[in-house]
């Protein structure tokens, strides 16, 4: 049940087709990864005609399940050369699901330089010429399309970086206020969309909760239960709403895992100046918001609206961005973080990769560490496609190659997020082994390593990290397939009633009898599929590793090294 919107850009035809039976119990990441595995030759050029961009709401998306509107975007990554799934909040997932669309597949490549947008509504799908939108930033494109098609639409779009095929380009969609800032950021999927000359996908419906549910009464009871689980947990119930994700800045700094000055130390004296506490203070004082939802039906409200001195707003500023464009660059100015964040959103860049690239450039002496204005000027070159701009848009590994820097924090070609693997070893295992590359959400060991959520595993010791990362990678693959915001995991890890409530919702919606074991099997299957794609794409065990300097160099303040070896890392996927 449900439809696939297949857009062939070689023939320039958009058509709706029936979802094959074999995909009926897949959604979100499970569906994007399976379709990529089934339809994309693993050895293809990610920017060529044989790659596909696959977009899918999750299994629960479009229902009244709380915090269930995540949108998965998948394909072969131009950054890692392997399979990629990136997901975002915003309004589009629930709108697609409400239209009965289980996946959007963009394939082929047009023979001319013309740009198009795809528009889908209850009436069907159209491919519409859109040369007038080419070259425009995502904020303008979103405003134009909301004006043209109505305030109720979802706009999935790319910035000039994606149009110019930069490997750091992401895919964004809007929140309820029209901010084009909810990014499926990692791995260059914006360039894949750009390579197919699709500038935007407009999802035209005002519905967010229109997905079909088989047993409405059972579903409602389970959803109520799950909402209760989220509300009563201190993190999901009030913590995230109070300060947002940037509340992590101070605790990651205090445990000495905050990558500072391009991953040379784990402590930044001025971390509190770019922390969640500071952000909330400034945002509220300037008439913005410290509490905000990125999607309808979210009960965790972790987002924020940060007014900038120039009158624009950056919504949200997340921890990863505040770290990557803050302590990683020795920048302690939150307004500079916001400005850099806004440019990334508009030009269409992944903020984590951008921060890593800028950090490498600073190490190379191209820009001074701590010079926020210089960072802004450099980032403004991306849109102008100067050589430096193109280097930034190509990511941290490229920047390192061009400027002769070996101290590049990346795994499988993707820049590392805001937790150093030497002081947060569980995350180090995830970075090294995830099919996604250096990805923190793929197996967020920070939970047990730093936040004492779901137990405690000492972040400075190698013990227990492989098991921790394995279990989290499996669980995350399942949550990513349900369309649930990953932050529900805080409740799931600590409250034994939360996972059964999720399973009860799935069973009521699809008429199933799933158990917790089935959820584990789903997560394992997603990982197996992704690893097999990567193997066929040329990845070997040697790619499940971290750059040498993490193993060789002691990392202050705790002076530890990443000491989990290849043999132990090879145990992560022993299922």
């Amino acid at each position, binding site marked *: 049940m449900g439809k696939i919107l297949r857009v062939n850009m070689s023939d320039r035809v958009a058509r709706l087709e029936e979802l094959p039976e074999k995909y009926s119990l897949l959604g979100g990441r499970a569906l994007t990864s399976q379709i990529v595995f089934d339809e994309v030759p693993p050895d293809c050029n990610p920017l060529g005609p044989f790659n596909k961009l696959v977009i899918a709401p999750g299994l629960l998306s479009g229902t009244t399940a709380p915090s269930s509107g995540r949108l998965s975007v998948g394909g072969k990554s131009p950054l890692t050369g392997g399979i990629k799934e990136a997901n975002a909040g915003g309004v589009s997932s629930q709108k697609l699901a409400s239209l009965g669309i289980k996946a959007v597949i963009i394939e082929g490549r047009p023979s001319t330089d013309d740009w198009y947008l795809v528009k889908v509504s209850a009436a069907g799908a159209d491919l519409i010429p859109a040369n007038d939108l080419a070259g425009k930033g995502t904020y303008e494109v979103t405003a134009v399309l909301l004006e043209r098609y109505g305030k109720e639409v979802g706009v999935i779009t790319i910035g000039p970086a994606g149009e110019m095929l930069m490997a750091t380009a992401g895919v964004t969609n809007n929140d309820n206020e029209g901010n084009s800032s909810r990014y499926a950021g990692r791995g260059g999927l914006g360039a894949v969309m750009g390579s197919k000359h699709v500038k935007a996908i407009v999802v035209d419906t005002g519905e967010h909760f229109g997905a079909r549910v088989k047993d409405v009464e059972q579903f409602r009871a389970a959803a109520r239960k799950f909402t209760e689980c989220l509300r009563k947990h201190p*993190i999901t119930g009030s*913590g995230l709403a109070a300060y*947002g994700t940037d509340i*992590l800045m*101070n605790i990651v700094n205090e445990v000495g895992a905050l990558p500072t000055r391009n991953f040379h130390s784990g402590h930044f004296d001025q971390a509190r100046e770019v922390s969640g*506490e500071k952000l909330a203070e400034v945002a509220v004082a300037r008439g913005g918001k410290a509490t905000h939802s990125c999607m309808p039906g979210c009960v965790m409200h972790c987002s924020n609206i940060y007014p900038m001195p120039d009158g624009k707003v950056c919504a949200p500023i997340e921890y990863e961005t505040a770290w990557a464009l803050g302590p990683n660059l020795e920048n302690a100015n939150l307004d500079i973080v916001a400005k850099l964040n806004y440019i990334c959103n508009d030009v269409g860049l992944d903020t984590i990769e951008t921060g890593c690239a800028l950090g490498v450039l600073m190490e190379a002496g191209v820009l001074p560490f701590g010079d926020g204005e210089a960072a802004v000027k450099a980032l403004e070159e991306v849109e102008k496609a100067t050589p430096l701009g193109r280097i930034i848009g190509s990511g941290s590994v490229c920047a390192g190659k061009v400027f002769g820097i070996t101290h590049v924090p990346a795994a499988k070609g993707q820049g590392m997020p805001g937790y150093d693997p030497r002081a947060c070893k569980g995350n180090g295992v995830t970075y090294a082994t995830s099919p996604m590359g250096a990805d923190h*959400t793929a197996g967020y060991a*920070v939970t047990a390593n730093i936040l004492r959520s779901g137990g405690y595993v000492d972040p400075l010791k190698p013990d227990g990290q492989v098991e921790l990362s394995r279990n989290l990678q499996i669980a995350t693959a399942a949550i990513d397939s349900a369309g649930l915001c990953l*932050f529900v995991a805080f409740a799931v890890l600590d409250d034994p009633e939360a996972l059964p409530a999720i399973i009860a919702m799935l069973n009521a919606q699809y008429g199933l009898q799933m158990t917790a074991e089935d959820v584990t099997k789903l997560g394992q299957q997603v990982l197996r599929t992704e690893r097999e794609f990567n193997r066929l794409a040329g990845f070997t065990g040697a790619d499940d590793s971290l750059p040498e300097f993490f193993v060789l160099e002691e990392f202050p303040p705790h002076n530890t090294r990443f000491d989990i070896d290849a043999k132990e890392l090879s145990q992560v996927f022993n299922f």
Partner: protein
Amino acid sequence: MDVEVRVFGGLESLIPGARFGQGIPLEVQEGCSVGLLLNRLAIPREKVFTMLVNGCHVTADAILKEGDRISLFPAIGGG
């Protein structure tokens, strides 16, 4: 002996005049535990989820030493 305390994530509202992340110098007795320190600062035990001493997780019965840097947090999450 002298130690330094930092509070975060709203705990600062429990200490008059405190700012998040700003070091509060304190003089404590030999053998003082983190739990005793919380009492001294009148911070209710149940409001503190994470206690760090010199960047490492400890429990409330951890005994403080000269020059220790104590960091206190409520329940925190993010990604």
